């Protein structure tokens, strides 16, 4: 009778060694991603965002901090510097020329509302009116035709428009990724590390220590989270470090609870007992059995929590409690945009969209990780 070679019991026909090789595992992950395309979308989006954060100076076309009131509240697309235009006109035009201009533009010269007397005031009023009507381009064209030797503003392109101080929205959003990802990453790092240690101690040592720790955790989880975060943020003051610390500490419970849950599950399953029975020491059990099994759930939880932190940081920014207003953060931008919602909705719309996109990417990634990491790790544990 011929003997068949030792195959894995999945019926794929490969040997055990081939199954465990890293190339095969990588291809396996690739297939999993392809099968569950939403996970792939999440991963790609996430990488894009990380890329934007790291290479922000390259990605952003303008300086996010550069203010130019001449470009204030411009809608997405090409715009002219209104302040510069005003200055040129005031310096070079007299009353007749202004009247002629108004005639060409079909604007009633007398009807222009001004603060004071004189053509300069009329010019300002004219430019303001045309700005509101979105007809600056027309003005520039006519002036350019009639007076070709005048220095006129060049056109500038703002992909997503500008805010009230004339800063490019797109560049600010790109730089905003830095704040969000920094908060998310370090927040999760801190909360995860502390939480993991607490959870390990609680689950491994058990007994009264466990009861006390769980008591704390349950108490913090019973709080209206957002409320306390907001209050504490208002007390500590606006700074990036404060925000990171707040999230890093308040998010400890969920990591602790997840870790403890895993530790308990492993303790209660067979193989810790068998490991002990063959004489494995405490530390050995910890490293060989418990820690590898923690990676999966913790990474999954970390992804979701990071998404949450980005969310909450934006929320804090919206209330004016996150980073200082000079730093481009999506929450700050949303708060600023709220005032101009009716006239210039893009100032608030785009940062919010960025938040949503980031959150979406991380949630998709987290879902995929959850489906993939846990059972897979348990399988390779054999």
């Amino acid at each position, binding site marked *: *009778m011929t003997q068949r070679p030792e195959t894995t019991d*999945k*019926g*794929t026909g490969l040997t055990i060694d081939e199954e465990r090789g890293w190339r095969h595992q990588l291809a396996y992950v690739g297939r999993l991603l392809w099968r569950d395309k939403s996970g792939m979308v999440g991963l790609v989006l996430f990488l894009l965002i990380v890329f934007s954060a790291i290479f922000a100076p390259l990605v952003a076309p303008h300086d996010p901090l550069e203010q130019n009131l001449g470009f204030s509240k411009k809608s997405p697309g090409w715009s002219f510097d209104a302040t510069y235009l005003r200055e040129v006109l005031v310096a070079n035009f007299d009353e007749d020329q202004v009247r002629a201009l108004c005639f060409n533009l079909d604007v009633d010269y007398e009807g222009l509302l001004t603060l004071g007397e004189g053509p300069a005031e009329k010019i300002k009023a004219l430019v303001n009116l045309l700005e509101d009507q979105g007809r600056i381009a027309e003005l520039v064209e006519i002036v350019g035709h009639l007076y070709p030797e005048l220095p006129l503003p060049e056109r500038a392109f703002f992909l997503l428009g500008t805010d009230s101080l004339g800063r490019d929205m797109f560049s600010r959003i790109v730089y905003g990724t830095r704040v969000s990802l920094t908060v998310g990453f370090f927040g999760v790092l801190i909360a995860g590390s502390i939480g993991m240690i607490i959870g390990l101690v609680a689950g491994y040592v058990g007994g009264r220590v466990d009861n006390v720790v769980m008591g704390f955790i349950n108490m913090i989880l019973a709080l209206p989270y957002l409320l306390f975060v907001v209050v504490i943020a208002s007390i500590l003051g606006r700074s990036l470090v404060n925000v990171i610390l707040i999230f890093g500490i308040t998010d400890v419970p969920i990591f602790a609870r997840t870790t403890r849950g895993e530790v308990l599950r492993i303790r209660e399953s067979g193989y810790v007992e068998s490991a002990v029975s063959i004489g494995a020491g405490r530390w050995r059990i910890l490293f060989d059995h418990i820690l590898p099994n923690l990676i999966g759930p913790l990474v999954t939880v970390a992804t979701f929590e990071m998404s949450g932190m980005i969310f909450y940081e934006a929320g804090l920014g919206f209330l004016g409690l996150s980073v200082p207003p000079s730093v481009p953060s999506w929450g700050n931008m949303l708060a600023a945009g709220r005032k101009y919602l009716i006239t210039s909705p893009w100032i608030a719309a785009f940062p919010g969209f960025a938040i949503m996109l980031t959150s979406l990417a991380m949630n998709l990634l987290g879902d995929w990780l959850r489906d993939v990491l846990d059972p897979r790790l348990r399988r390779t544990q054999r």
Partner: protein
Amino acid sequence: MQSILNVKNLRTRFYTLDGVIHAVNGVSFTLDEGETLAIVGESGCGKSVTVMSILQMIPRPPGRIAGGQAVFFDGVSSRGLLKLGEREMRQVRGAEIGFIFQDPLTSLNPVLTIGSQIAESLMEHLQMSESEARERTIELLTYVGIPGAAQRYDDYPHQFSGGMRQRVMIAIAISCSPKVLIADEPTTALDVTVQAQIVELVAQLRSEMGMAVIWITHDLGVVAGIADRVMVMYGGQVAERARVDDLYERPQHPYTDGLLCALPRLDAKEPERLLCIEGSPPDLLVPPTHCQFAFRCQYAFDRCWADVPPLVSVGFRHKVACFYDLEKGRPRHDV
């Protein structure tokens, strides 16, 4: 006399991400009125899938009934069960063919009273009113041996012991006086003493109600106590089919022989080692091109690897699918 159930060449497959699982490959058997057929085999041999297929209870993706027929004769007319639409199938299930499952704890809905779970069958199939159903349920509970039935109607499954719960399951299954009762390993999850009670109960019900019973088990000891005929399955196919005495006295298939040798016997003269069958269950991902048991068979020869052995008759209502003649100790000539 026509058989109450006539299954011919049933084939069921599961289309999974790892491949196509050929769970049932051409299984045939008959069930006569009032008789008890035991289906025996190890885990994964397809016994549960076979009976679930007959009632079209296989989850449709990923499962599919790939062929065969199951004719049900209720004394008046014949129906091809595999061809029935869902609505007609629902009338058969519960009312004409009853089912008992293996684990009574998980097979009963934990948030509903056991009384209501019995009564809903009665209301659905026999159109009883709620009070009528309640009365009949209490009768049924008493009938299956649950004391204080009237009070226990409103109790929940977790308030019963394992054996009591199985009695409740039996009450559900027989509530509409079905012609056939299918019991899928009903005693596997129970203590040995309780096992005996349940076996006795089913035997009693069978004789009192005149039901035919299909009893699925992997325990040959139980088979001896309750079956009229036995069907041994392996790898999704029928290995041997015989009347119970014939099977125990003259097993023709090496697998059956192995199973019987693995049973500890009270009348053994000296302490003997229990023989076990070497090897592991077959891989169902490939459709069989040779005898499935060949890997583990000590009698396997080259013919066994070349073809699938057909079922041949070796006695009165005794069929076996094997190329080797166990009694004569040499390959069969007439296959």
